[in-house]
């Protein structure tokens, strides 16, 4: 994490709303990638991101170490995404992207790649390969043992390899 981001986090913790908005904008694409890995559609991802922004603003005081901001925020986002899934009680399957809605015309290749792997492997694959998280960090975010994360990454990678038709 660079010094500018740390500075923004510290300002945001002192209720500087513009610093907070700037901080979120820095992470917005990664937030979207995470939300899509769980929810698989843009509208729900937008709702979860909106809720996460508001939750983070309200809870900025509770973040003890600015270095952990992204991990902390990702965990909040993940919880909002799973809440949304529970509320909808809908199983999101691969067929959803065969006929994308108007809102889902973005990032088709990314969504198709995620769709090619089993649901439980999508988030660890995205966090590890898409955002550069370490296995230990993913283990903390997902509250799963590190060995489980390693297994998920290995299996997810194999499924992705089939999707690309090549060895990864």
């Amino acid at each position, binding site marked *: 994490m660079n010094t500018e981001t740390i500075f923004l986090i510290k300002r945001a913790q002192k209720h500087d709303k513009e610093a907070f908005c700037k901080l979120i904008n820095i992470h917005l694409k990664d937030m979207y990638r995470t939300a899509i890995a769980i929810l698989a559609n*843009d509208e729900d991802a937008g709702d979860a991101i909106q809720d996460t922004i508001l939750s983070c603003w309200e809870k900025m005081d509770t973040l003890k170490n600015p270095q952990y901001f992204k991990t902390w925020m990702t965990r909040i986002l993940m919880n909002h995404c799973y809440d949304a899934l529970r509320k909808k009680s809908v199983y999101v399957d691969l067929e959803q992207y065969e006929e994308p809605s108007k809102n889902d015309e973005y990032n088709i290749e990314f969504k198709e790649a995620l769709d090619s792997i089993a649901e439980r492997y999508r988030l660890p694959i*995205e966090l590890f390969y*898409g955002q550069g998280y370490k296995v230990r960090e993913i283990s903390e975010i997902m509250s799963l043992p590190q060995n489980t994360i390693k297994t998920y990454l290995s299996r997810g990678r194999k499924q*992705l390899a089939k999707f690309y038709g090549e060895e990864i």
Partner: protein
Amino acid sequence: MEEKKVLPDEIELPEIVLSKSNHAFEMIRQESVNMKKEKNRRIFKSQVAAIAGRLFQLHR
């Protein structure tokens, strides 16, 4: 474990995501206005309570 990019790097934020995040930012900006009003209201209340206490003591 090898950190190799296996998912597309280039992502475009959909309009709906931008719109909803901008709405959240507006709510935060609006909330801070409300928070200031609330803080001022609380200060005013505490000042009234202090004056009332002082008057009560003077009239005893």
